[in-house]
């Protein structure tokens, strides 16, 4: 499956990926409204770790055997057998955050429920990749989980 890979040698710690992820997961899809007025406030599904010297965007690996799915107590976290995308169903998630604890990559974000990357639900190019100004995020086929 196609996955997002972070290339830390080109990550410049601008964190625009976070801004555009948050916008892509908002109701309005408008960057200013998503950040300033929308309630409940949308949540970015990936986050940049590090500082200007070394940084990279942590995002879901969409593992072949996802620990978060195994850990989920309600069946909210599922891996789509066709696309391979791991999605958290917000209707079923009760916010126990077992997935947050289970994820070996720290890629699930804790909130009132769990939030995680959905690869922009089948968009040709996820928002973070599309808007990275330095191609530090790439979306390619054939790579491994890591």
């Amino acid at each position, binding site marked *: 499956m196609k996955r997002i890979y972070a290339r830390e040698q*080109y990550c410049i710690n*601008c964190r*625009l990926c976070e801004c555009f992820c948050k916008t892509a997961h908002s109701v309005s899809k408008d960057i200013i409204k998503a950040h300033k007025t929308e309630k409940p406030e949308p949540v970015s599904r990936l986050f940049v770790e590090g500082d200007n010297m070394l940084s990279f965007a942590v995002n879901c690996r969409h593992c072949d055997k996802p620990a978060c799915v195994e850990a989920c107590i309600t069946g909210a976290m599922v891996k789509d057998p066709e696309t391979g995308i791991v999605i958290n169903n917000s209707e079923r998630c009760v916010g126990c955050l077992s997935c947050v604890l289970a994820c070996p990559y720290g890629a699930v974000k804790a909130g009132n429920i769990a939030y995680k990357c959905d690869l922009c639900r089948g968009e040709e190019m996820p928002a973070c990749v599309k808007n990275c100004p330095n191609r530090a995020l790439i979306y390619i086929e054939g790579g491994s989980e890591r």
Partner: protein
Amino acid sequence: MNFLNPEFQIIRDKDRCIKCGACVRQCSYEVHVSDKDTGELYTNDINCVACHRCTSICPTRTLTVKKNESVYRESANWTSDYINQIFRQAETGGVLLSGMSNPQPYPIYWDKILLNASQVTNPSIDPLREPMETRTYIGAKPDKIEFDSNGKLKTKMPPQVKLEMPIMFSAMSFGSISLNAQKSLAAAAQQCGTLFNTGEGGLHEELMPYKDCAIVQVASGRFGVSKEYLDMGRIIEIKIGQGAKPGIGGHLPGEKINEDVSKTRMIPIGTDAISPAPHHDIYSIEDLRQLVYSLKEATNYQKPVSVKIAAVHNSAAIASGIARAGADIIVLDGFRGGTGAAPVRIRDNVGIPIELALAAVDERLRSESLRSKVSLIAAGSFRNSADVVKGIALGADAVYIASAALIAMGCHMCRQCHTGKCNWGIATQRSDLVKRLNPEIMSQRAANLLTAWNHEIKEMLGGMGINSIDSLRGNRLMLRGIGLSQKELDILGIKHAGE
């Protein structure tokens, strides 16, 4: 107390700002500050150099950089620039330094020269329908060519270098610019069938894949020069002078000599890299001839040897000497050429415009029957393809561009190269800044620029009814001056518009 008035002012549209803090993290000059307690964003306008990194990276286009509205009392004589420079010198007691090119309002002759086009007779040519040649061969040409009875060439040709277009990237050393910037230029040159120039910094091992499109420079500090280095380049260039700072050497401060630069330049880490003003073994044309032939001998006469000089008052006589010293190529660098660092007074007051120097040198070499013995490369602020066409019509075989290529890669001409804090990852060795320049993206942008200019050159040639760049070279009848004095027209060797 700081006497300086900020040059720029940053306006933040608070209705649009989402406080993502990208501006804070991206500014190496520490203009943008985020308040630790409130998260509010403020600006230290005095630090702003108008590099526009923040305005470009801001996802909501919140920021505007304006000229500071707070002004000194106006004077045509005591401009704010001169006042600020005195404040700065009174503070430091030092020589003022700056980067990039001469910003003073001297005449720009390119803008006072007009091109011809064909009408009715000698019809114009459509480059999209008919072949149009911009391929250029650089190197000394023989006086005559002889063939044997089978039509085979008998004359032994001096080494020639083929360029797919008459534009090359001029010298920018590893040290003055980042490795990522050099890699981008090298890859663009390779893609477009032209050359890049290592500058006086040696050839970094990561640039080895691009050695076939490298001009290797030998300058007064001899940094990075070895037999292998000379063997790798397509052309060897002896740098005598640079248009931005004629008569001045170079000084790369020790703090920029990191492990990589040290290895490539072959000097210890942390030592200042000082290129003396003169070559200490060249005090005459005869001495220059010795170096030219030493380099030819060292490379088995396989490569053209080029000599680069700054455009100065006696360029024509000097160029004649260089041609007689055995150089295959003469590079003339005009006073609007860029630099990674130069004393402001030198940059702004020394040298002459490339247009005048080029016309004078071409004329002199022709009158002494030396023109075909050398290729002539013009440099020093070719801003667009029309400048290139005019330069070739004034007598250049090809041109060098550097500032234009850097602009293609993000440079906003803020003239702070000498500070080493380039926010665009070009004129810096700081790893957090260098990685901002991704060669995958920027090589393509530089290549796009070359491709675009080459298309435009073909359009202009076609309009003139010419189908080959060779027919344009030195073809001053294609040029007319506008608003120039008779003396200027005489030096340029062109007629006035309407004549």
